[in-house]
């Protein structure tokens, strides 16, 4: 397969779902249930094509960078704005992730959404979502990415608000869109800096520009700022602290949507973006990214512990895991971060689809009893589903084990890599808080996931409804089985405890950073190119003599010598010091993570299965913490009072200002002139017009007087004539 074919096929992959969307949206009534088959068929073809493309990229062109093409979109005379598509290994993997999960969700929804009156529209929306998501994946430049970035925002808006009759759904969709917009504002600001500085949106051009020492506004700080601003897009889309608030609310959408968009693909787009911009992130930006990820991972995990809504637990779990990925990229464990994205996509999609299966069954059971008050999503109403829904239970158990990080699962492989990365980062940079947050979140993940599993599937049925649930049909269980199988380690690496030897980690290599050495961690600089490095370093160091990173620069000199030794010791195994350190940290991290995950699972069983401790007593003991966790750290309330309240208040004030002051001035001027007009009018009426009228009246008076003479009697006129004649005669003769 040639490169051109790969690009052509990628274009086809991109456009097929759009075609599906167009056909379905205009033929909703005509298609009816057939929309489901059409949508699934389109995605099926897409999936096959994606596998072909990914296979040929990862096998035939494995060593190549990005296979890409670009063309001019807008020509401004002085500047040209180009867009294009590209496929690299990252894209190849993402293509499969997106199309596979989308395909499975399409199948799943045929049953799950079967009774919905807007069934065809649902498939149309799924189509446009898949299109947009694929657009992000195969973008080779920032502009394309931003365009599709916004379009996934739109599809997410449409799908969250799919049941718009519910106010909560409409509110959630609006919240999601606006929150994302805030992140996108930062993203776009970053893009503006990039375009302004490098004159191009292409990733290649920009990274080459950065590598050549060209900095925005000639300042390293601005490069950091650009990186952080671009990362803001990821904060919004991947629901990172502080913009994570929209994701739990987004659970108002249909459950397949949650699985597709809010667990596996769209929210992962932020992580994908962070991967993409990784080469241009400076040391400061990376620390920022790492801390945002760590905070998110930890905070969301604490919230997930106390939630009672089945989907809310999973939502916070998603937020937490996304934080994990972001944190991984922030600390430089790029490969593992992206690896976790993929493994997480499978098991989180499976978890959500499993929750969909449960909710579907609960809903049907509730319907059977005509019970509309019991919340079918509340785990306090479940229990004992293990017996009634065995297949769902088994798959759910599988993926719960995977997400908790138990060996022989994909989750273990990726999580272990991330934790090793954080430990390495901690030991190299001294930021120990990050590994602490990482391990803490890992323990909590194991705890709350098993809590969810035990509460809903184990024990006895807590309600009548739960005991009358039934296993769903193959359209629902099929995807569950497939996704849970994908959590087995062999798909990624034959060695169940170390993924570095697997195909995945070999295909997805951490890209070399293009940031000038003075702005980058010394341990992230490539070791096999010191000569080049040193040159770049001196150049930039003189350029930024006053830069705050001189300290770092000093370190770097030492690191280079050290790096040379490291290279001789390990051959070409380690690309840089960080990878080497990560290698060292592999076993400590593994042991620690096993211990902590085991502890989490054990505690969970103690609390919920064997009731050794009572969760209620525990909650009472640490009431303040429990409250904070239950109320999601009061983020919504705080935002309501501060950001939203202030904005709306200010808007109201301005609106008043506009009406009262600005328009008041306009109307005031008008009133003043009307007043002057009134006065002038009066003057005109009385004085000037008075004079005119006086003249007229005088004339009128004389007119009236003379009028008397005009009798209209001819005899009178005759007399006047004769008298006149006689007078004339008297004077003339």
């Amino acid at each position, binding site marked *: 397969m040639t490169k051109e074919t790969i690009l052509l096929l990628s274009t086809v992959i991109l456009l097929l779902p759009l075609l599906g969307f167009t056909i379905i949206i205009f033929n909703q009534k005509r298609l009816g249930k057939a929309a489901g088959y059409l949508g699934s068929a389109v995605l099926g073809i897409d999936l096959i094509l994606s596998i072909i493309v990914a296979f040929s990229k990862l096998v035939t062109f494995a060593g190549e960078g990005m296979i890409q093409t670009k063309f001019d979109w807008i020509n401004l005379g002085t500047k040209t704005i180009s867009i294009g598509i590209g496929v690299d290994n990252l894209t190849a993997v993402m293509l499969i992730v997106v199309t596979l999960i989308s395909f499975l969700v399409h199948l799943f929804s045929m049953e799950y959404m079967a009774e919905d009156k807007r069934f065809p529209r649902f498939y149309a929306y799924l189509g446009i979502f898949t299109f947009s998501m694929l657009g992000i994946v195969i973008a080779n430049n920032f502009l394309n990415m931003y365009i599709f970035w916004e379009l996934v925002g739109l599809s997410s808006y449409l799908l969250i608000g799919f049941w718009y009759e519910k106010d909560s759904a409409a509110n959630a969709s609006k919240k999601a869109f606006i929150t994302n917009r805030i992140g996108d504002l930062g993203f776009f600001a970053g893009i503006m800096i990039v375009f302004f500085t490098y004159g191009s949106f292409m990733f290649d051009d920009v990274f080459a520009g950065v590598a050549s020492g060209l900095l925005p506004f000639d300042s390293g700080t601005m490069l950091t700022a650009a990186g952080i601003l671009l990362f803001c897009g990821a904060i919004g889309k991947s629901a990172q602290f502080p913009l994570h608030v929209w994701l739990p609310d987004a659970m108002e959408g249909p459950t397949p949507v949650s699985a597709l968009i809010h667990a596996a693909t769209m929210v992962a787009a932020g992580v994908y973006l962070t991967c993409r911009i990784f080469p241009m992130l400076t040391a400061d930006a990376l620390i920022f990214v790492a801390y945002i990820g760590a905070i998110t991972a930890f905070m969301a995990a604490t919230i997930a512990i106390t939630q009672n809504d089945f989907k809310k637990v999973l939502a916070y779990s998603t937020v937490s895991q996304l934080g994990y990925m972001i944190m991984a990229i922030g600390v430089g464990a790029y490969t593992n971060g992206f690896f976790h994205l993929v493994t997480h996509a499978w098991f989180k999609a499976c978890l959500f689809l499993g929750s969909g299966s449960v909710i579907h069954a609960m809903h049907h059971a509730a319907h059977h009893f005509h019970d509309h008050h019991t919340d079918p999503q509340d785990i306090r109403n479940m229990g004992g589903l293990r017996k009634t829904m065995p297949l769902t239970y088994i798959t759910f158990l599988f993926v719960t084990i995977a997400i908790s990080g138990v060996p022989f699962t994909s989750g273990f492989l990726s999580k272990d890599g991330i934790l090793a990365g954080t430990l390495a980062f901690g030991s190299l940079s001294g930021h120990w808080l990050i590994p602490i947050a990482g391990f803490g979140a890992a323990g909590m993940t194991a705890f709350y996931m098993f809590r969810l599993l035990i509460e809903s599937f184990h024990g006895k049925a807590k309600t009548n409804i739960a005991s009358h649930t039934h296993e769903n049909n193959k359209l629902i269980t099929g995807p569950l089985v497939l996704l849970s199988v994908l959590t087995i380690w062999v798909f990624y690496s034959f060695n169940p405890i170390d993924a570095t030897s697997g195909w995945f980690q070999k295909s997805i290599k951490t890209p070399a950073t293009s940031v000038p050495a003075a702005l980058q961690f010394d341990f992230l600089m490539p070791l096999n190119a010191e000569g080049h490095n040193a040159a770049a370093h001196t150049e930039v160091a003189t350029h930024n003599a006053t830069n705050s990173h001189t300290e770092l620069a000093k370190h770097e000199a030492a690191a280079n010598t050290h790096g040379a030794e490291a290279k001789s010791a390990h051959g070409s195994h380690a690309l840089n010091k960080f990878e080497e350190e990560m290698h060292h940290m592999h076993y400590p991290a593994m042991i620690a993570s096993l211990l902590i995950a085991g502890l989490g699972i054990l505690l969970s069983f103690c609390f919920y299965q064997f009731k050794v401790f009572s969760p209620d007593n525990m909650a009472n003991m640490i009431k303040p913490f429990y409250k904070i966790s239950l109320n999601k750290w009061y983020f919504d309330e705080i935002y309501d009072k501060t950001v939203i309240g202030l904005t709306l208040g200010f808007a109201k004030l301005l609106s008043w200002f506009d009406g009262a002051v600005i328009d008041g001035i306009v109307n005031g001027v008008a009133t003043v002139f009307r007043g002057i007009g009134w006065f002038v009018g009066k003057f005109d009426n009385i004085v000037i017009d008075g004079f005119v009228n006086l003249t007229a009246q005088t004339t009128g008076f004389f007119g009236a007087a003379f009028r008397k003479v005009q009798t*209209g*009697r001819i*005899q009178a006129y005759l007399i006047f004539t004769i008298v006149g004649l006689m007078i004339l005669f008297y004077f003339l003769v």
Partner: protein
Amino acid sequence: MGIGLTHYLIISILLFALGVFGIATRKNAILVLMGLELILNSANINFIAFARFGGMNIEGHVAVIFVIILAAAEVAVALAIILNIYQNFRHVDVDEINQLKD
């Protein structure tokens, strides 16, 4: 002293004055018309007188005959109008016939 131009003219003036007086003072349209006739006749007398004494000769006679013919025509038309006025107003009082005024 024989009867000369002056005498005729005096008669004519008297006749003219009577005519004007009649037109000016009478309210009856017929009487106004009669006053008019007097004025015309006073003019005729003048013409005859000047034809005899003033050297107008035959022209004076011709003018008189014109005047008589005109007077006849005028009387015919005027009487017709007066008759119409009478039919419309049931009187021939000139002071009351003022509908063209205003």
